[in-house]
């Protein structure tokens, strides 16, 4: 089936070349980082994780979000989603690939990555994160590929796939739960020390992932002969609506706990992000933008007339994707590290090379995503005709 990714028009190749340019720039910048060290980033002694880990966290969510088409189809027998499950699975594959790459570029000594397997350490959450992420990647490759191939050949997929499909559903939940556990079990980091961090991550995941999927469906409909379907898009939109509401609700729960209890350790991080602390305010406009974008997203997806208008829905999805990205991909990590354990504010600003490398990883992910979607759409077009 891989050959299907090679047959494309000018626009397809143009888009792929465009992405490859960013991959190339990112790669060159990464070579510089390999040579100099992580000092080319904006990271510091106080904020030791930044843009890479934040994007990793966000993308784990997008990967887990794919399950929102798999679950209704396989567990609730919601037939309409049968058409688009493959898109969810392929979105998961490319997202997890980006996640793994983000982890890799964040390592100080990437050549030693296999030490994680040479000296397996079950008490480290990072060890489990490696397992669940790679497991999810493999599961989705096996399931997605085989189901699509069966569809192409006009047969039912192999029986042994069924248990794997069922397994992939809780597995999707696990990847984002374990990723939240990376943060919420650390003593002395008040911002992350909340039992609803994993649920919060999942809610933003189930908003961002399906939102991206809707956008992909709308694009696919425009550029190919395969229509993912209006009903499918509308059902996904309802999922996005619920998830983004829950996400904002969870955030407000956090705000209540921090500001009603008035415990400085919990308040100060939120203060830093939303009003600034000791005169440091770099994140303030971003965080308010994130909050407002999510509120606009709620309004546009909850009101039936705007949700049912696919043009408005597309805007809503972009808004929600951006809002959740700022929330998680920008504020979540820097906010947890500021103020530092010694209650000092050393503001973290990602450096240009750092942003360039991150863009390269995103471009790589979208390259893989486009290729996989091209394959899936080609098969759908083939079987229809």
């Amino acid at each position, binding site marked *: 089936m891989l050959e299907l990714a090679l047959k494309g028009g000018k626009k397809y190749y143009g888009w792929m070349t465009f992405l490859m340019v960013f991959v190339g720039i990112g790669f060159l910048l990464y070579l510089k980082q390999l040579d100099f060290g992580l000092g080319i980033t904006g990271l510091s002694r106080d904020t030791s994780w930044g843009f890479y880990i934040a994007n990793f966290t966000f993308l784990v969510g997008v990967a887990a979000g794919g399950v929102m088409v798999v679950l209704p189809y396989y567990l609730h027998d919601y037939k309409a989603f049968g058409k688009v499950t493959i898109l969810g699975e392929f979105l998961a594959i490319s997202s997890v690939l980006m996640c793994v790459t983000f982890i890799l570029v964040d390592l*100080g000594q990437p050549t030693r990555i296999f030490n994680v397997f040479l000296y397996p350490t079950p008490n480290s959450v990072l060890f489990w994160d490696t397992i669940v992420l790679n497991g999810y990647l493999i599961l989705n490759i096996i399931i997605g590929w085989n189901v699509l191939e069966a569809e192409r050949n006009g047969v039912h997929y192999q029986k042994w796939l069924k248990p794997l499909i069922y397994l992939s559903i809780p597995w999707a939940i696990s990847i984002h739960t374990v990723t939240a556990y990376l943060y919420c079990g*650390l003593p002395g980091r008040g911002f992350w020390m909340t039992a609803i961090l994993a649920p919060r991550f999942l809610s933003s995941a189930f908003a961002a992932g399906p939102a991206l999927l809707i956008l992909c469906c709308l694009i696919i409909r425009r550029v190919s002969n395969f229509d993912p379907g209006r009903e499918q898009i509308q059902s996904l939109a309802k999922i996005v609506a619920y998830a983004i509401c829950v996400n904002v609700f969870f955030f407000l729960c956090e705000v209540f706990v921090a500001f009603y209890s008035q415990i400085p350790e919990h308040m100060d991080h939120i203060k830093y992000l939303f009003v600034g602390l000791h005169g440091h305010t770099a994140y303030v406009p971003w965080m308010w933008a994130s909050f407002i974008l999510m509120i606009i997203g709620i309004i546009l997806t909850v009101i039936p007339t705007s949700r049912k208008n696919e043009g408005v829905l597309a805007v809503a999805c972009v808004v929600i994707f951006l809002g959740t990205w700022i929330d998680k991909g920008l504020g979540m990590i820097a906010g947890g590290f500021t103020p*530092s354990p010694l209650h000092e504010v050393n503001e973290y600003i990602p450096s240009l090379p750092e942003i360039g490398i991150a863009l390269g990883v995103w471009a790589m992910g979208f390259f893989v995503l486009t290729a996989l979607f091209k394959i899936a759409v080609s098969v759908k077009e083939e079987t229809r005709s």
Partner: protein
Amino acid sequence: MDSSRRRILRLFGISALALTTRPVLNAFAKEEQTTGAEVVIKEGAKSLKARQWAMVIDTRKFESEADLEPLIEACHKIHNVPALQNKNHEIKWLWGTHYHNAFPGKAARFLAEKVEHRPFLVLCNHCENPPCVRACPTKATWKREADGIVFMDFHRCIGCRFCMAACPFGARSFNYRDPRPFIKETNNKFPTRMKGVVEKCNFCAERLAVGQLPACVEVSNGALAFGDLYDPASEVRELIRTHYTIRRKQILGTEPSVYYIV
């Protein structure tokens, strides 16, 4: 034609398998030989021993940052800690800070003037229940059973910095660039580090092994005491018994081994 191609492929497969098994078997064989010989620093006749090393810092004996200088200097010199200008890349094992930074949440609105202006020495607490050790995915940092020192293997560390996020005391530093050009005078008796690994205070394990007290303790003129927390007759226990001491963020349950007399 087809069958001969298949045969050649099979041959390739078998030879590839044979090539990969050898190193695996070798690895197992080596593992067998090295068990029981995992001593990090050889124990000599003179080496100092304890169940859990602990430090008591008499902060009353430090009036200004200048009083801390000789201690920090001694530590950073023998451990090849580089002097980096960029604050983001800074590496420190031992440093001075204000009371409200060393003990956030413990500072009263109005503080005794002396305490307000006194510098507080901070370093790795060698916690009895260290969260950094829990976080490390490669066992590159661990709690040494023999004496409770939280150890670091610079050669195994993959530079994921999970330990830095886990440490509630900001005790760990990361080599954001090659530190070697920034070491004023290299001490050949202690390893230098490479870029991309984490480091921190090691309670001078290399000095304890040869019967010497930690460098900072040695040059502190008695302001720092060092000894076994579980030996009721030790100097640290004597000080803890006779003075009111506090520890950093005790509420987190990490059980720091550095005590402060305020």
